[in-house]
């Protein structure tokens, strides 16, 4: 028991440490593909370091919501980390505290407070970005639900540790339509939730076109650092769910020895690196959608997930 709690702590540490690296690698790759040199992959660490050492300015017009939001945005991905397989193949101490739905709830809680804080400031761009994020959020919600229903229908469980075993039972399960179509739908969800390119441009600096970024405009100093770090962790956690639970549950630690846990770290990093290459190729080959076309993008994700559900009901597996 104490050992699995220790491993949980290692998982949390993994997410904390490598989340900025992941976003640094992503932006560096993207710049290289666009034949620029780009910032160092360690730039996000330097940004965080700089922000933590700056003074924090909080408008006197804001309420307590604005003050607690950075902490909530920072802490909610950590709660999700406890529930999902990041490094291990077997359930850890808190795995049965909540299922994938609980993970979605935690991430949604952080997003909810971020939107409230953006409205709280009175900055004209904040509420605009908040309402747009909510629009993307409620369009993504039904897809999330159908994905969960299909997963629970196929695997008879929504605990991520049990679900991941289902796909690698045999090759037939891996190529089953429910699995492949769910992967496509969930990838589209990650693009929407992470504010990546067909939906939102993470590198954009034009306030009127921002969706995700404009919520953090009013934060400074430590608050900004926590918001930024929290966002990076959320994206890494989503990638971990996609890779370790749905796409390829290989390379995870199978034994209880601590060396096995530590040797799983580079394998997971390689998997995440490959995923980053996939994301970059998607991002550079697509253009950002117009705001009212986002509903069609997520509508397509919805159709794909419902098709996954229909087909898996046909087969009855």
């Amino acid at each position: 028991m104490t050992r699995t709690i220790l491993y949980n702590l290692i998982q949390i540490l993994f997410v904390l440490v490598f989340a900025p690296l992941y976003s640094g690698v992503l932006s560096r790759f993207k710049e290289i593909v666009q034949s620029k040199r780009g910032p160092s992959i360690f730039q996000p660490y330097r940004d965080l370091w700089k922000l933590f050492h700056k003074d924090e300015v909080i408008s006197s017009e804001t309420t307590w919501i604005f003050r607690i939001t950075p902490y909530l945005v920072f802490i909610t991905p950590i709660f999700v980390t406890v529930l999902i397989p990041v490094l291990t193949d077997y359930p850890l101490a808190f795995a049965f505290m909540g299922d994938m739905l609980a993970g979605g709830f935690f991430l949604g809680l952080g997003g909810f407070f971020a939107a409230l804080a953006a409205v709280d400031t009175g900055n004209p761009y904040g509420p605009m970005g908040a309402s747009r994020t909510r629009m993307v959020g409620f369009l993504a919600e039904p897809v999330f639900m159908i994905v969960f229903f299909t997963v629970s229908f196929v695997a008879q469980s929504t605990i991520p540790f049990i679900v991941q075993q289902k796909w690698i039972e045999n090759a037939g399960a891996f190529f089953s339509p429910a699995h492949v179509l769910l992967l496509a739908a969930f990838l589209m969800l990650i693009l929407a939730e992470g504010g990546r390119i067909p939906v939102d441009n993470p590198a954009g600096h034009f306030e009127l076109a921002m969706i995700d970024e404009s919520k953090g405009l009013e934060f400074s100093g430590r608050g900004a650092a926590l918001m930024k770090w929290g966002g990076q962790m959320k994206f890494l956690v989503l990638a971990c769910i996609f890779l370790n639970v749905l796409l390829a549950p290989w390379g995870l630690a199978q034994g209880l020895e601590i060396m096995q846990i530590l040797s799983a770290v580079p394998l997971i990093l390689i998997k995440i690196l490959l995923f980053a290459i996939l994301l970059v190729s998607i991002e550079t080959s697509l253009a950002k959608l117009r705001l009212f076309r986002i509903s069609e993008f997520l509508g397509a994700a919805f159709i794909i997930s419902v098709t996954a559900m229909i087909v898996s009901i046909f087969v009855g597996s």
Partner: protein
Amino acid sequence: MPVGESLNTLSAGLILICSFAMVGTRQVQGVLRFFIVQSLLLAASSFLLGFDEHSIHLWALGIITIVAKVIVIPWILKRTLARELYVRREIEQTVNIPASLLLSLLLAVGAELLVGPLSSAMGNLVVQVNLPIGLACVLIGAYSLAARREAVPQLIGILAMENGAFLAGIAIAAELPLIAELAVAIDVVLIVVIVGLLTRDIKRTIGTTEAAGLSELKEEPESWR
């Protein structure tokens, strides 16, 4: 579930998604591209079935599908209506695209409700998957015939209906005489030739291929927009 059957189920699911995509695409060229992908998947599905059931008919069927629907039909369409295919971008629709997608989803669920009891009585996994999805493709093709307002996507809607019928057919009657399938393939190609030439003539005399614009008779071509 064995790999062969699960691959067949996967390709059936992708065929259904191609049908949805044809309803949801605005560009004529995109609709044609999804039709080509759907036909390729159909051929793959019939190769898989032919491999599973050791049926030379299904292999021949797959080859006929590739020749007729992936090579010949797009080639004819490009020859007869080249500008029509590449110039037009936005398609006018009577129902907007998200609503269309939801309606086609309902059609797919309805297809399952309709033939679900029948196909589960057959007890064969391939039939259980292909029959409802084939029927769903037929219904969605019929819907896109009604909702589209352009000649070329309507034509592709007819072809998509044929694809759906084909998907259901290879599951139910694997040993269908080859001559019947050949006749159907030639039939489809002839339909495309005739509709393509007709559309080109309509385009030449009237200046549009929008079916909605063809509602009244007038003597002077100038009054058409």
